[in-house]
């Protein structure tokens, strides 16, 4: 019974944990501008994160080592250092965007400007990572993030042109007043939001913190294959409600207040409150994950002590890196860059950095030295290779598309 409960909890937190500021922004923007003509990208993205998270979970459960730890052995210290630099930059930018997202959610609840919240959030975030128990944090924010289900239910309450939505989903194209460049730019951003690199670092490091072993393989797989797709459903609901409310008005979304509006239209104040709470939990949870991920990646490259299982004084370098990461994220926001814009840039850089994360996973998951007979089967390798090609294509296309479309501005 306890086992069933643990698995259920894992799934629920995976659902809530899938959505972060990148998903919120990318899905709402895509929905408003293109309807649900990008629905297929979400499907592709969710399958991709499932394939690779399963590999990462398996590597960690069998070898007892997080993925990033093994990367250096396979790539050598130089390439792995370059990889570390790239991943760290993206993770810190993502951390900044998540903190900004928490600030925006608090602004919606209090109407106090988000910038005034940023230092407060930074401190609370640090305190949480310093003191609180890992599993408690994960469960609280994962479960609270589930209130984003309000967007799923909202869709059924909103007056929607179902035929038109079906047409958009089955005939993917830019539609009136938009071009293919922006369409693909948005597709790359959505893909990157589903496969954000920190999710894998965090997933495999978290598995070590929870002391998974080969017996936990099933738990890992259930979490991945139930949690991520259902999380993707929440992301899709954001796209869907945005497509229902904003697309017919030709209204593009560029603020978090707009993203919450469909929930308010469907359910009034209660729906609005649920949406804001959901944004808060999702972004704060993601801020914790990215904050820890900065420490994980650096400590695992150098072989330092890391993790929340240890007392902070026994992992001084790890906690220093986490602290520095949070400060750097705050510093980015303090340039007064709009958090939504920061999120957009972060997604582009994530897309560029995706191969850095996913290629090593595929290599390690095929290594009999670590995995014995639990190496990738034909299906995992087939899908893994296909996705590696997609990931490379997205990485190569991201910057040119950003320049041609002027950040999707047309």
């Amino acid at each position, binding site marked *: 019974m306890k086992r069933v409960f643990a698995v259920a909890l894992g799934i629920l937190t995976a659902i809530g944990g899938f959505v972060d500021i990148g998903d919120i922004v990318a899905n709402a923007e895509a929905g408003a501008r293109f309807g649900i003509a990008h629905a297929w990208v979400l499907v592709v993205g969710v399958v991709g994160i499932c394939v690779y998270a399963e590999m990462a979970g398996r590597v960690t459960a069998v*070898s007892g*080592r997080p993925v990033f730890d093994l990367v250096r052995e396979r790539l050598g*210290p130089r390439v792995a*250092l370059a990889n570390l630099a790239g991943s760290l930059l993206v993770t810190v930018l993502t951390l900044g965007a998540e903190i900004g997202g928490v600030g925006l959610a608090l602004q919606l609840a209090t109407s106090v400007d988000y910038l005034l919240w940023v230092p407060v959030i930074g401190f609370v975030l640090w305190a949480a990572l310093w003191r609180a128990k*890992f599993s408690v944090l994960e469960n609280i924010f994962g479960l609270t993030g589930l209130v984003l289900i309000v967007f799923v239910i909202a869709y059924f309450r909103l007056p929607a042109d179902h035929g038109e939505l079906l047409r958009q989903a089955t005939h993917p194209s830019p539609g009136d007043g938009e071009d293919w460049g922006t369409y693909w730019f948005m597709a790359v951003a959505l893909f990157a939001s589903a496969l954000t690199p920190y999710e894998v670092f965090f997933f495999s490091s978290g598995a070590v913190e929870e002391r998974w072993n080969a017996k936990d393989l099933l738990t890992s797989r259930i979490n991945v294959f139930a949690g991520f797709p259902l999380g993707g459903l929440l992301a899709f609901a954001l796209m869907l409600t945005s497509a229902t409310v904003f697309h017919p008005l030709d209204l593009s979304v560029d603020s978090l207040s707009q993203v919450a509006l469909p929930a308010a239209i469907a359910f009034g104040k209660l729906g609005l409150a649920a949406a804001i709470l959901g944004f808060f939990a999702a972004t704060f949870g993601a801020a914790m994950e990215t904050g820890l991920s900065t420490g994980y990646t650096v400590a695992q490259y150098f*072989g*330092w002590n890391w993790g929340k299982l240890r007392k*902070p*004084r026994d992992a001084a370098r790890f906690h*220093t890196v986490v602290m520095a990461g949070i400060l750097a994220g705050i510093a980015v926001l303090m340039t007064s860059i709009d958090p939504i814009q920061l999120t957009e840039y972060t997604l582009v850089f994530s897309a560029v950095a995706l191969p850095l994360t996913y290629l090593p996973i595929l290599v390690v998951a095929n290594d009999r030295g670590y995995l014995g007979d639990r190496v990738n089967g034909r299906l995992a390798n087939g899908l893994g290779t296909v996705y590696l090609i997609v990931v490379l294509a997205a990485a190569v296309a991201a910057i040119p598309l950003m320049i041609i479309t002027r950040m999707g501005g047309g």
Partner: protein
Amino acid sequence: MLIGFDLLDRQILDADGEPVGKVDDVEIEDGTVVALLSGQQALGERIGGRIGRWIAATARRMSEPPDQPPARIPVDLIAEVTSAVTLSVRRELLVDPPLETWLRDHLIARIPGARDES
């Protein structure tokens, strides 16, 4: 028979499974590995180039007293080599990594709650 190439960049754990560092380099005598070298100094020297030199120089300066040679772990302390290198001793018997010590003494241990389990 241990081959240096297989050991390089592997995680080193002590007898309790606590991380000690990575195999940042190995010391070879007459074609066999006699010791593992660990720490940013050894790593920097192995990486080479400007970045490598910078990493090594910073690590050298951090060591207490300065300009210590990198931490050296003789191979007879190795108990087992799997996805990590496990030692037969506890890490208290090894040289403390200088950066860890410095950050602990000057920053982390001074913050309330540093000694508590979370």
